């Protein structure tokens, strides 16, 4: 398994030993050793997955790094957080994805109304399996726990992803002020119920 490490909070260090890692195209800033970078045409999802991505425009320009050495990834000086997955399923905005192990399986899931409100497209990316995933966020990534007794509401613009046994719903807070253009700017939220973790960033898209 590849080893993911935070060199600084904005630089990801991945050690490869004949392994492969997928990352956003163009995110490599430096490497040592002999590593090859190739555009990943299918993103490890097979032809069906690639077509689905095309249709849903949950598109990701990914590249595959393979070989032996150390690769450094960074993207627009955004903060990077490594989330280890042990057989769980993580749902994430494709724009927040930086790199992940090829041992993980990715796919597209229907995000429902939330996608329309957050402008992130109606579909989200899901990552499943055993391995590490590196997530970028504007500002430090914040993890909020959700329990059955305390559901969580999140601004769709700050939402990054979630993990665990969570149900998502859409909540409106629309009154006559919204209709006359005097909204508080927080008319839609995303409600999470169940047990798990929700990831948000301290910036709104």
């Amino acid at each position, binding site marked *: 398994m590849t080893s993911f490490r935070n*060199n600084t*909070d904005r630089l990801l260090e991945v050690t490869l030993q004949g392994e492969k890692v997928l990352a956003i*195209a*163009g995110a490599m800033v*430096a490497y040592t050793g002999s590593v090859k*970078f190739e555009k990943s045409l299918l993103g490890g999802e097979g032809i069906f997955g690639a077509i689905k991505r095309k249709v849903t425009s949950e598109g990701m320009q990914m590249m595959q790094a393979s070989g032996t050495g150390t690769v450094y990834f960074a*993207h*627009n000086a*955004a903060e990077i957080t490594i989330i280890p997955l042990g057989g769980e399923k993580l749902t994430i905005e494709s724009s927040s994805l930086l790199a992940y192990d090829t041992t993980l399986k990715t796919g597209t899931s229907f995000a429902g109304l939330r996608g329309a409100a957050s402008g992130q497209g109606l579909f989200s990316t899901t990552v499943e399996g055993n391995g590490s995933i590196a997530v970028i966020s504007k500002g430090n990534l914040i993890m909020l726990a959700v329990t059955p007794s305390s559901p969580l509401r999140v601004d769709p613009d700050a939402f990054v992803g979630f993990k665990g046994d969570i149900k998502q719903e859409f909540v409106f807070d629309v009154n006559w002020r919204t209709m006359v253009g005097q909204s508080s700017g927080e008319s839609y939220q995303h409600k999470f119920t169940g047990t798990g973790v929700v990831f948000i960033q301290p910036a709104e898209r």
Partner: protein
Amino acid sequence: MPAYQQINEKMVEVQLNNEEIFAKKGAMISYQGEVQFSRSFLGGQGVQSLAMRAVTNEGYALMVAKGTGKVYYAFNGLFVTIIPVRGETLYIESDNLLAFDARLTAGTMFLGNQGGVAGIVRGAASGQGLFTTTLQGTGEVAILSDGNCIGLPVTNAVPVCVDPQAYIGHTGQLDTSIVTDLNWKTFVGQASGESYQMKFSGTGTVYIQASER
């Protein structure tokens, strides 16, 4: 000699004792004591070098601060790193230069002088122009980076490849060359975005930033 101190990761304090310091024009945010600021035309380099700078577009507007007191520098909320130069030459992109003291000699280096054609390609590829700034002597340099500045050590056994867009500068006995990684995918518009890199071999340090220009 001027003492550099990092106030926080985005701000640097320089203590002047009747000394001079050069800095990016407009980067002063506050000062204490008796300090005068004036536009520096020569940047401590003499007329010939000025002419070269004008011709080569490796231009940066510098100001000189003179006097006794404390000066605080910051620029655009970018990260600031202090790099000590000890009798060696630091190559740095002029965009990333924040401040340096008058003990250092600044110059302009034609990249072609350092690595032949590959050097020219490097300048063209990184979009940084074909010329780079050199600082020589003993002193301190404050540099700017978008995201933390990371110094990667280069040894004879471990050469380092760097994305030209993340490159800030380097120091030490280093040879640069261009590595291309082109295959059929590149030509059908399916490039990985990492088709060429700058390879540094030798002994020294390469500085990169966590963002691509």
